[in-house]
């Protein structure tokens, strides 16, 4: 068994080509933002009924995935599974880069992004949004320190353990905060549920792990490095477990809502009569994002079939986006019940299902966030020793893997 060696990515056309592609998407997102800022949000599909749209789906996906991407590192350092250690650095880098991408989308969609600095010094501590600003920036700092303890020489084991534990607790707080953005909304029948926080934590485990595995597969493919099939299989099965946990929380979320008469209307909408949202829920979230990935990831031949891992992780990401779309947009599409027991109508869409058609501007902004996250991670891998050069099965301790 060799000692794990980390090396910067070599300057190959594939590496720089992918960077250029990401940069192009980031540039397109920048142009979208300028266009929206110049004309106002009237050029987007969002309106006074659907106030958060596709950009928020991307932003929250990336933010949630960011904390999940740290899983791999936490499993190694906090829970002592040594086999995960060689990929801990990449896990930390991805956690920071995904968060940066998500935050970029979130702040660039603000009505007044130029006033962002205001949010840095005028805090309203009763707002979970304000808390999230601290949680997000703090997460970056904590993970950066943790990464330092992973990469620097001569760092005492206790310091590494402390940093990893702090980062793990912080990522739980971060996702609790993100879920609570919705969970604490008493006004809307689709939200207002404490289960949002644990649901978002479960989602982060799955989305973050899927993003990590996709980046790992992509990086090792274009650089001809090895992604230990043993480790890959382990992680794929763990991803399958995370998907099952998300499915479980989703089940409890809807069952408990159906039980409350006040929420049966919105549940009927999402699960049965909501048109596009119902189709997205059953086909996108449950079938493509849940059942099929589980079949693929728990397949007996997954250790030899890399394609199953790739497809499974891709579907988890796709299903995750759909799940957030159903939660965010579907939740707003259902009309607010201001007058229970009455049928209502008005010039302001009272009592009707709200419509939303996202524009390319919003899509470009969202994809730009993903591209920015990948670009930051790519640059880190290019210039820092993040990815192991020799992560073969021989170099991953099988005894540890078998734990």
């Amino acid at each position, binding site marked *: 068994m060799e000692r794990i060696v980390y090396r910067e990515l070599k300057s190959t056309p594939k590496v720089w080509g992918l960077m250029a592609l990401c940069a192009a998407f980031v540039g397109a997102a920048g142009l979208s933002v300028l266009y929206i*800022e110049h*004309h*106002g*949000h*009237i050029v987007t599909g969002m*309106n*006074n*009924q659907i*106030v*958060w749209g596709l950009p928020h789906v991307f932003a929250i996906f990336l933010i949630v995935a960011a904390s999940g991407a740290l899983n791999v590192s936490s499993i190694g350092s906090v829970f002592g599974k040594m086999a995960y250690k060689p990929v801990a650095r990449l896990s930390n880098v991805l956690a920071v880069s995904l968060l940066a991408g998500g935050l970029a989308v979130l702040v660039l969609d*603000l*009505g*007044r*992004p130029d*006033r*962002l600095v*205001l*949010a840095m010094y*005028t*805090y*309203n501590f*009763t*707002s*979970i*949004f*304000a808390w999230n*600003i601290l949680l997000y920036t703090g997460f970056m700092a904590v993970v950066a320190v943790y990464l330092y303890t992973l990469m620097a020489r001569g760092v005492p084991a206790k310091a590494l353990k402390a940093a990893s534990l702090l980062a793990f607790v912080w990522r739980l707080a971060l996702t609790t905060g993100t879920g609570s*953005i919705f969970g*604490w*909304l*008493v*006004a*809307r029948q689709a939200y207002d549920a404490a289960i949002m926080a644990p649901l978002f934590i479960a989602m982060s485990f799955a989305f973050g792990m899927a993003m990590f595995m996709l980046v790992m597969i992509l990086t090792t493919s274009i650089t001809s490095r090895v992604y230990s099939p043993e480790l890959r299989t382990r992680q794929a099965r763990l991803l399958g477990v995370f998907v099952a946990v998300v499915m479980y929380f989703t089940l409890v979320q809807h069952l408990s809502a159906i039980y409350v008469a006040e929420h049966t209307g919105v549940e009927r909408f999402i699960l049965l009569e909501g048109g596009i949202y119902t189709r997205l829920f059953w086909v996108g979230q449950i079938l493509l994002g849940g059942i099929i990935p589980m079949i693929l990831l728990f397949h007996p031949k997954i250790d030899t079939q890399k394609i199953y891992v790739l497809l499974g992780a891709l579907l988890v990401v796709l299903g995750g986006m759909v799940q957030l779309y159903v939660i965010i947009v579907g939740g*707003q599409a259902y009309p*607010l019940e*201001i*007058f229970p*027991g*009455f*049928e*209502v*109508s*008005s*010039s*302001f*869409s*009272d009592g009707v299902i*709200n*419509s939303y058609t996202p524009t390319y501007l919003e899509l470009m902004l969202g994809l730009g966030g993903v591209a920015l996250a990948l670009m930051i991670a790519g640059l880190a891998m290019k210039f820092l020793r993040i990815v192991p050069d020799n992560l073969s099965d021989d170099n991953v301790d099988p005894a540890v893997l078998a734990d």
Partner: protein
Amino acid sequence: MIIPTKKEKGAEVSRRDFLKSGAALATVTLAPGVTLMAFGGKAQADGLKPGARWGLLIDAGKCPEDCSACVSACSQEHGWEDNGLDTDPQWIRKVTLKETATGRENSLPVMCQHCESPPCVDVCPTGASFKREDGIVLVNRHTCIGCRYCMMACPFKARSFVHEQITDQKTTTPRGNGTVEGCNLCVHKIDRGDGTTACVEACQATGNNAMMFGDLNDPESEIAVAVATYASQELRADLGLGLGVRYQNI
């Protein structure tokens, strides 16, 4: 020796009064229509009635479905326009109700309910959404970053987001692209001592008299007497938000 009470401490009071009057003087001298509300701390003190809780009482029984005088008056007073787009702001809207169980139809205006515990204030990350001491819930357009979380949090859809550039604004109602806005209970009229709002004025002018404005905390005010005498209710009372707007005959 007689110890002066706080009120009798002449020096402090007179200094505060002096500053207040200075601010008021500056407001008057500079220009009519230019409101320097940000200066002098509580420069609006002229209109801020101590202990007041401004509110509205709306009698749905007197509100004809085909009348929208309150909506037009608000639009005119504050300079917002509803051209039928989903992106257009609506500070106040007429809602038609049909009781599911009985089929009885009704109509009433809905606007910001000026909650005692406003969810929009709780969720606002920068504190731009705030509640004045007299219960009026406002948006500070200078610190609103346009995140729209208040719109997600409002149970009454009382807030609108400005989706495009605005020209010809009313000097009494600052508005801006990319920020959130909503009924401000005609705060400028209250502060200058009009004692009413544009919607209530318009409603009374039609002769329907479906809307009443006043200080809910003043037991002798018409609105306080009315709510103490006749049954009235809050919208979504189950949320326990303590609304400043009450309805009769829904």
